């Protein structure tokens, strides 16, 4: 399977031969001749600054030619690439701000309240059970212990995310956990919020009223147009797409009735891009628009939910994914140019780092990754994992990512677990082969669970990593868009980096 995008053949070092030498006052740089940037070369530095140089300018740098006062020197100085002009104080503050997530423990706590699920999906076999398998329901006692454990985190804010299976299949325990967490948090005063990830097939008016009253944010999965969605997500005796669409509309209406801004408060939906989905980039975007979604996350299928033998049916060459991504995002950009506001979330995550010099702490694209130190996943039986993906690997018979149990483990012991230590070391980009010389290292991150599942090692080999390929392909695309300098496109991309907090979903922690 091909994973890396081919780059243009530009060989300034061979051309310079023995004349190649280092420029004296240049900061550490990484360079990449982009596939579609008119031959220009992208330079980045370790602080996250970037600049395009022409091939002629790159050739001069390769020959060590960087004289003060020249246009090239001025261009690089303006972008923080000249060492003698760097302020240690300023750069230290920037780095500290962007890495502030390192000062806290996990803020995302994924609670799998049941493995039972009413739908059968092509990419999810390992992590579901049939509806009669009630032994995979979390008990109220385990639920309480999950909350007790979560509140030990040193993070000042915690999100409790209900997942499954289908969490609504064990709704009474979900309710119990929510009420217990709100009550228990009064002693901690953390910023607490709840998220439900549901296919909505088991939603009822009563459940919805409870969720809205208790300010639980609702997310669902939409795989694209109805025919594609229902083919991939089979709801016995029903139509999975129509059910989801019906409830999305109902929930969004409910938010409007509450007086909430619909541009901020609406059901979030997630896409899983399978091989079949690659054929429908525009149609998928249009499906999301028609459902009232203003953000679409073009996630490639991940390797966790299904057995290797199924991979042949739903996996694909990542270069096909790049084509899909480019077509879909070009369509989204053209809609924005006509005044319609919709964004692609992968792009927003990278652009926040590239354009805003901020890190939005998206756990799977940060360095080190959020595995365990940014997120924990709790299985229905109380076992604790470094991530939901680690939990899925456990369901496939491999306990590598199991790091504790809410009934017996202490928070400190879990955080000091040897697996957690290894996951941190494996996910620091600056120490990984290939990442350490990659132009995109300042903005990138890899989840070690992905490397483990797809390549057999948490360290992985980025040259052959499908996830690395996706990250490189998306960043190539974004930098090519920035390179065009087209005002409307750049304005849209900048707008995608605006972070608006959904404060309505934050629970009151006022002491009773």
């Amino acid at each position, binding site marked *: 399977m091909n994973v890396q995008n081919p780059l243009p*053949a530009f060989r300034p070092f061979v051309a310079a031969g023995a004349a190649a030498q280092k420029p004296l006052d240049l900061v550490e740089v990484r360079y990449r001749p982009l596939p579609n940037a008119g031959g220009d070369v992208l330079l980045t530095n370790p602080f996250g600054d970037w600049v395009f140089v022409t091939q002629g300018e790159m050739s001069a740098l390769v020959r060590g030619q960087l004289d003060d006062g020249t246009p090239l020197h001025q261009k690089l100085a303006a972008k923080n690439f000249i060492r003698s002009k760097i302020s*240690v104080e300023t750069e230290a503050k920037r780095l500290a701000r962007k890495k502030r997530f390192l000062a806290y423990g996990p803020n995302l706590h994924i609670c799998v309240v049941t493995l039972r699920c009413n739908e059968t999906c092509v990419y999810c076999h390992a992590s579901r059970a049939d509806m009669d398998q009630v032994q995979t329901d979390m008990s109220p006692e385990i639920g309480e212990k999950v909350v007790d454990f979560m509140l*030990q985190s040193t993070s000042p804010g*915690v999100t409790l995310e209900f997942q499954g299976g289908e969490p609504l299949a064990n709704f009474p325990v979900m309710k119990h956990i929510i009420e217990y967490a709100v009550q228990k948090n009064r002693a901690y005063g953390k910023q607490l919020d709840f998220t439900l990830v549901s296919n909505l097939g088991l939603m009822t008016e009563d459940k919805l009223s409870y969720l809205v009253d208790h300010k639980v944010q609702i997310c669902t999965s939409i795989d694209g147009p109805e025919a594609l969605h229902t083919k991939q997500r089979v709801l016995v005796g029903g139509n999975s797409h129509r059910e989801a669409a019906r409830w999305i509309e109902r929930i969004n209406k409910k938010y409007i009735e509450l007086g909430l801004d619909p541009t901020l408060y609406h059901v979030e939906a997630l896409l899983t891009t399978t091989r079949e989905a690659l054929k429908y980039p525009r149609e998928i975007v249009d499906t999301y628009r028609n459902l009232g979604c*203003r953000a679409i996350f073009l996630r490639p299928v991940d390797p966790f939910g299904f057995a290797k033998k199924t991979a042949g049916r739903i996996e694909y060459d990542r270069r096909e994914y790049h084509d899909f991504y480019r077509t879909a995002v070009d369509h989204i950009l053209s809609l924005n140019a006509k005044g319609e506001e919709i964004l692609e979330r992968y792009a927003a995550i990278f652009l926040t780092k590239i354009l805003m010099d901020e890190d939005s702490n998206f756990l799977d694209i940060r360095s*080190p990754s*959020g595995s365990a130190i940014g997120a924990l996943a709790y299985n229905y039986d109380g076992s604790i994992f470094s991530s939901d993906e680690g939990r899925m690997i456990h369901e496939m018979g491999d306990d590598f990512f199991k790091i504790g149990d809410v009934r017996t483990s202490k928070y400190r012991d879990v955080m*000091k677990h040897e697996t957690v230590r290894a996951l941190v070391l494996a996910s620091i980009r600056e120490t990984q082969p290939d990442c350490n010389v990659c132009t995109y290292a300042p903005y990138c991150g890899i989840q070690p669970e992905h490397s483990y599942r797809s390549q057999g090692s948490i360290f992985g080999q980025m040259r052959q990593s499908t996830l690395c390929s996706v990250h490189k392909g998306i960043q190539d695309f974004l930098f090519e868009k920035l390179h065009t300098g087209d005002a409307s496109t750049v304005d849209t991309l900048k707008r995608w980096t605006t972070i608006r907090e959904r404060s309505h979903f934050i629970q009151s922690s006022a002491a009773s």
Partner: protein
Amino acid sequence: MSESTDLAVSLGAGTISFEIDGSLYPQDALYGAAYVFLDRCYVLLDRVSDNRVRVLLRGKTKDAALDGDALAGEFQNELLGQTWRRKIAEDNRSLIEAITARALGGAAGPPGLDDLLEMDVGSETAFDDPLGIAMSWEEKYAKGKSDAAKTAKDAAPADAAPAEDPPEVTP
């Protein structure tokens, strides 16, 4: 091969090999250049004499015929580029260390990323929780369990990051 200066290329079935002068390049640059080919080729590095290293690249797919000249030229460019970049990185090492130490591990602040990087993974005692992540909420912020909530609020840094996964990025 038009571009190469010190490469001798021999083409076999889906395989090319060439020798380079190993004394001219840092070993890390050689490994770094070889790594770039891992998605397309099986790579073998072999020392044939004190200063000569033989590089063997064998295509991973049988059908794709290897363009030997292009691959050898690309390898050489990568090798020289990695060497060039490493020299610049050396010049900047103390600057990067100063910034990282100031940002993440200064005397006034908590220990940081550099502590993590320096951990001795082989030792049982290596992980001393430099960031305080392994401490419980009460241990990190509270004076005692009885007034955990009050102390937690008092001790939380002013710039505490809000719950952030993922942030709500909306148009």
